[in-house]
């Protein structure tokens, strides 16, 4: 007989359910899905395995992957961040109106983007951390303001991004390895290090149970601020990569990435309730979404209907993740 046979036994799950949860959230499931989808792509499009095709796919994926990676940090922390659309737009129009050529210019550009993103992230961090605003409302306001700033800088699509950036960052190293892929890989590696730091562990702790984390001595405000700051910097980087790919400026270029980023996070198995998930799985989630577009195109589906598939995939991904966590909770 046990005294803990209460109806309110929280989150007690079996090893089986746990292992499965890890399989989903660790990114293995989405990786398997991705590879399967790639196989389909390979069948439909025989040139799919050529280095240039892979590089093109990587280039398409990189902005979304980076934006979604930033969003993941906030979602782990049990927040929502809509400002990513605004940050990306600002970075894009800045690069298109102030092209700085050559490697030095590229370095300056990327630093500038990260700085812009970091600054807006810091503003979000202050609003959510110190002022205690709802993350969705606060980042909605910053997103609107950022969209406005982007429109002020460049009121209609146009401008040119520095050539060096456009060519070098979409190129392949030694004809094989796509540069954009390297950037994403570098971010993932950095994350693998960060998540083993005190900051990383605190991030997960706050997402799972903010009050318990606070009572354990975690500085919730500071960690939350850090999450928004880093997320902003990643959106900046995403804006940089997007500009390299589009080569031109568009004041609303970030908007389409908003939904897709949430879809990538959900596909990667990161729970929108916070406390679990990771960047790697999100990146694969983003890659899956981009690949899906290509596969649909190869299969002859009109590009008009791409959104429909993306929306349905998003819903399925979330339903799956919600069902999983409910099963986990019920065990």
């Amino acid at each position, binding site marked *: 007989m046990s005294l803990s046979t209460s109806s309110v036994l929280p989150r007690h799950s079996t090893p089986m359910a746990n292992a499965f949860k890890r399989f989903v959230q660790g990114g293995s499931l989405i990786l398997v899905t991705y590879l399967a989808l790639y196989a389909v792509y390979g069948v439909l499009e025989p040139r799919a395995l050529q280095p240039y095709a892979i590089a093109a796919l990587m280039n398409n994926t990189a902005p979304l992957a980076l934006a979604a990676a930033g969003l993941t940090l906030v979602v782990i922390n049990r927040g929502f961040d809509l400002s990513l659309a605004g940050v990306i737009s600002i970075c894009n129009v800045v690069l298109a109106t102030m092209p700085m050529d050559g490697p030095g210019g590229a370095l300056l550009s990327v630093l500038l983007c990260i700085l812009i993103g970091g600054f807006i992230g810091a503003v979000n961090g202050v609003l959510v951390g110190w002022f205690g605003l709802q993350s969705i409302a606060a980042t909605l*306001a910053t997103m609107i*303001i950022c969209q*406005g700033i982007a429109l*002020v*800088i460049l*009121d209609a699509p146009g401008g040119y991004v520095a050539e060096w950036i456009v060519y070098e960052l979409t190129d392949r190293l030694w004809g094989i390895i796509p540069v954009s892929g390297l950037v994403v890989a570098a971010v993932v590696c950095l994350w693998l290090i960060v998540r083993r730091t005190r900051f990383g562990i605190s991030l997960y702790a706050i997402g799972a149970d903010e009050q318990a984390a606070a009572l354990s001595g975690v500085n919730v405000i500071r960690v939350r601020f850090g999450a928004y700051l880093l997320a902003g910097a990643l959106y900046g980087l995403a804006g940089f990569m997007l500009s390299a790919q589009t080569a031109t400026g568009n004041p609303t270029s970030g908007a389409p990435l908003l939904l897709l980023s949430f879809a990538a996070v959900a596909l990667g198995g990161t729970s929108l309730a916070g406390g679990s998930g990771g960047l790697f799985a999100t990146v694969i989630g983003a890659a899956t979404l981009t690949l899906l577009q290509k596969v649909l195109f190869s299969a002859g589906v*009109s590009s008009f209907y791409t959104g429909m598939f993306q929306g349905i995939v998003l819903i399925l991904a979330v*339903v799956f993740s*919600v069902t999983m966590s409910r099963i986990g909770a019920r065990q």
Partner: protein
Amino acid sequence: MTTASEHQMEQAFNQTGDHRRSERISRETISAIAVAILCVAMLLGARFISPSLGSWSQVETVLVLGSFLIVLSFGQGLVILTGGLDLSLPAVITLGGILATNWVGATDPGAWYLLGAVLLVCAGVGLVSAIGIVWLHIPPFIMTLAMSIIVSSALLGYTRGTPRGAAPDLALALMKSKVLGMPMPILFVIGFVILGALFQSRSVPGRYLYAIGTNIHAARIAGVPVLLVQAMPYVISAVCAGLVGIMLVGYSNGATLRMGDDYLLPSIAAVVIGGSSILGGRGNFLGTVGGALLLTTLGTIITAIGLQIGWRTIIEGAVVLIALLLLREELFQKLGQYWRSSQPASESGSITRRKGT
């Protein structure tokens, strides 16, 4: 057996309760009043910038342009009241507009009853969102976002990228005609506001919405049909968006694939500025109407003085941010405390009511 001292305690406590009650009411009414005053002040102040501004025709323009936002943010407000968010509005506006021109306008502009069918289709979209949110437990934010791209993509395919058709007669009549010298849309929106306010604040379903927005567990135990009440605002919101689509078609005599895009953020902004809590359970429709009019006035003035669209967006965002910061619960509590402590009569000594541990 209540002792005399207990009675005193109770009374002392409930006197302070009185203050707090007036604070609560003020939170919503004050913002509605403040917003209304701001609107008038801006319209009058605009005269100094340009004499053509601030006239009656200017007011008419604001009301006509504001009518879209008012109708739209009624639905959005109900969704927010339950703690959700509807991001599918732009797509549903476009759906309403395109169906009205393609189905009705292009074939039989006089068939007013077909507009009912258009609204039914929109309601169907809302119902799908509601099912995902209420029964499949998808976060409202995600579900409506997904519906948004699904509907947009379907419309893109349906129109092959170029919408055709013309406005149905009824839509034209609604937006372009005048009754007794008053533009029809203004009369329509006044009627809408009255009905909307009654529904939200005085009807049984309206009360249920507040109940589940403020504490869904308690509402369930109190016998509120929570699933239905949770689903309802998404359907209403979609119908409102479809209606806005039809109105826009009547106003500009045609539909485009991006006609709804500019309305999503203002619809949320209007609700927030109007004093509703984004967490749900708090707010009233009249405040939202004020918020919508404020945003529209702001937009007209900015356009009139020749500032570009970017600045308009920045100001809109800043207004939302300021509203969020000003409407924080904490701030109101602190103000209340400050006010109390400046009143020697209600000093704390006699207040001995405890917070539960």
